[in-house]
């Protein structure tokens, strides 16, 4: 089955070009040129992934990202023309899983899309624990005291990666490779922002984390 990808971009030429590339690689692209209609199109097309331009007429990309994230865990990849820290971080904080800075190469875009579409259903039954949090890997469920915690697939992958090797300290680069699928050094702010988002969901007190611990100057590790 072809994965359906919603491309939200106001630049028709670019959208068409992205469509050509995606179709060429066996995806099924759906288009939307207006931020105001993005949520409607999202609901009707039920895509497996959203490619979202940050600068949109109508509602801007960050707001669209927040709306989609409000009702779905579907992976969101931003297309950014700005590599300024604030914009990228704002986009990631509003719920995007990853971003591709313009101008990108077709291969880069496809690699990011594929990485986010990695099927998670082939995982063997496995139950992991960090602190007082239980992770059912196959069932894709995270719970504390039998209370379910809702995580996006990316956050889930991040938590599982840490939980599988609780003795290991993960550098940001290692996490980028394992969770995001980057083969070369990428923007470590991806890790920082998503660790913050993950903490805000699973920690009792995000200011004093017990599940995902920071190892200063190195990276992160699972709590005991």
């Amino acid at each position, binding site marked *: 089955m072809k994965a359906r990808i919603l491309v939200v971009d106001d630049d028709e*030429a*670019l959208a068409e*070009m992205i469509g050509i590339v995606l179709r060429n690689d066996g995806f099924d692209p759906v288009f939307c040129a207006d931020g105001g209609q993005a949520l409607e199109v999202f609901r009707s097309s039920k895509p497996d992934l959203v490619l979202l331009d940050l600068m949109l007429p109508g509602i801007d990309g960050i707001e669209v990202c927040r709306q989609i994230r409000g009702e779905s865990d579907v992976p969101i990849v931003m297309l950014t*023309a*700005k590599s*300024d820290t604030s914009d990228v971080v704002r986009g990631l904080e509003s719920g995007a899983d990853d971003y591709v800075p313009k*101008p990108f*190469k077709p291969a880069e875009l496809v690699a990011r899309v594929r990485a986010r579409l990695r099927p998670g259903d082939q995982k063997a039954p496995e139950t992991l624990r960090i602190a007082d949090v239980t992770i059912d890997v196959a069932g894709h469920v995270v719970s504390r005291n039998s209370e379910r915690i809702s995580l996006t697939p990316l956050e889930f992958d991040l938590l599982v990666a840490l939980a599988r090797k609780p003795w290991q300290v993960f550098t940001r*680069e290692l996490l980028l490779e394992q969770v995001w699928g980057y083969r070369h*050094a990428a923007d470590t702010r991806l890790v920082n922002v998503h660790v913050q988002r993950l903490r805000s969901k699973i920690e009792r007190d995000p200011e004093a984390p017990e599940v995902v611990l920071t190892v200063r100057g190195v990276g992160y590790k699972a709590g005991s």
Partner: protein
Amino acid sequence: MVSATKQVPEPADGPPGTAPETAARLDRPETAGPADGQPEAAATEAAAPEGQAAPSSPRGQTPLFRARIWTRRARIVTARVARLVRTGASRILPATRYLLRAVHRRWRRSLQFRTVLTTLMLAIGSFAVVGAYLSNQIANNLFQERLAQAESETRYNVKQVQDTFDGAQVTDQSSVITLVYDTLNAVEGRGSVIQRRYVFEAMPEQTKPRNRWVESRASDQLTISVIPPELRKAVQDSGKDQFWASTEFPVGTEDRPGIAVGNKVTFNGTVYELYLIYDLNTAQKTLDEIQNVLLAGAAALALMIGAVAWYVTRNVVSPVSHAAVVSEKLAAGQLQERMVVKGEDEVARLGASFNHMAASLQEQITQLATLSQMQQRFVSDVSHELRTPLTTVRMAAEVLYDARDDFDPINKRSAELLYNQVERFQSLLADLLEISRFDAGVAMLDAEPTDIVQLVSHVIEGVAPVAAEYGSEVTLNAPAGSIIVEMDDRRIDRILRNLVLNALEHGEGRPVNISVAANDTAVAVAVRDHGIGMTAAEAARVFDRFWRADPARARTTGGSGLGLSIATEDTKLHNGWLQAWGEKGRGSNFRLTLPLRQGDTITRSPLQLEPADVGPAGAVRERTMLLLETAVTEARSAPSGPDATKEQP
């Protein structure tokens, strides 16, 4: 210290002058006296040790006893000060030094303090001058008054004594002695207080000593020694004239200042010197009191003047210091700060023009800030507007490029050219936007503690394909396995990638050596190639925008010409140094030095800029470098630096 002065011009005839005559004569020098003025009196005092009864101003005596008192006071004060200094020097000295330094600091920093202190000093100085003059005048007058009284009294008494003696019946010695003594005692005056003391002495070298029934006699315990020899000589040498001199005589245990007035009396053919001594103690006491009052008055006045000066300067200075405070706030960026303007005086004008200046400054700065914001907006907009179509073009070019094998040779080559030039255009645009971000001042440092050795390893891994293309080997010399540096890893990665790519491009296929070393405050990464190198002039320009060592040389890696400029800006953002060394035909060395912690200053780089494998003599001559920060002293000492790490061969 005594000068006897001849009282009056001596008349040629022998007989003693009558009382009215004497009084008249007395008056003359008195009235003539003041015209002589003060300086002459001082001169008399200075000349006094010569001791001759030279005729001069009759008021020479006045400063004498006062000077004596002052000398005594000064001696006491000196002794006290000396004792204080001796006992407490070690303890007081640091405190004094601290106090002096504090006063000096106040003096430099406070206009008000300086003005008040200066006013006080000047006031005290003026009071000292005026006070000295006044007390001198008063002392003089007191003395003159007493002197006039003493002279007239003496004349009268001497006449009395002489009359008594002249009319005496000389019978036997004892009655004569009684007569003389009674006469002399009468001179002392009646009442419990002695009005004048006398010293009665037979003139030496008398022809008829056997007729001298009365030798000498004096009041109290006085002896002839209290009479200054100059006075005696003057009295002895003259005829019947009256002379005077200042003296000191003992009463009880103390020495009192006095005036001795001398004349001759004859008794029974024997000539005697008769000196009458008048006590100046009461005059001295009055003088002392007056001086005390003057001193107290001066002190009170000085304090009042100080207070007035403080008040007045406060009124003048407080607007000025207000202005200083306001301008400091303005300088600190609080552009809305203004001075309070009251009235229409000079201070108000200052305030008004200051406010005017501040307003125009604020306007200009706001305008600049708006311009800067517009510039930033523009850069940001251009970034977006250019990148979106460029993305489309790039993707299209890549699709064509990927399918080029299906094209005929012309179209295939076109697709390749399109693809390569779009890539180049893209990197040029990226660099331009990066530079304009630095120019707009919006580049922010996102520093975190990171291992720089690991980062260098990543860079080497990243450039491995390029290195293989050039056939160069990239080696790493990092004795310390890990060095944690507070840095923005994206920017440092960009700098190092740029340096290594440059080294590969100009390395002629020879090895490129990378060294990493740290000291207490800084870490250095040196990238050394052994390729074509560069001259001094080239090394000086290597960080300039769009500069090329050799315009004719093909740019194979497709650099934009902005790489090293961006690296420079990135380094500046870290407060680091980026320096280049080169020698034609012997390669070049680029050294990046960063502070270990942001906010630290680099004192010296852990690595030397000039490679150790280059001969020192030639190297010094050919050595070239560019200093980005104020690293002149460090760079000069770098070649012989003790902590310089020797590079790999």
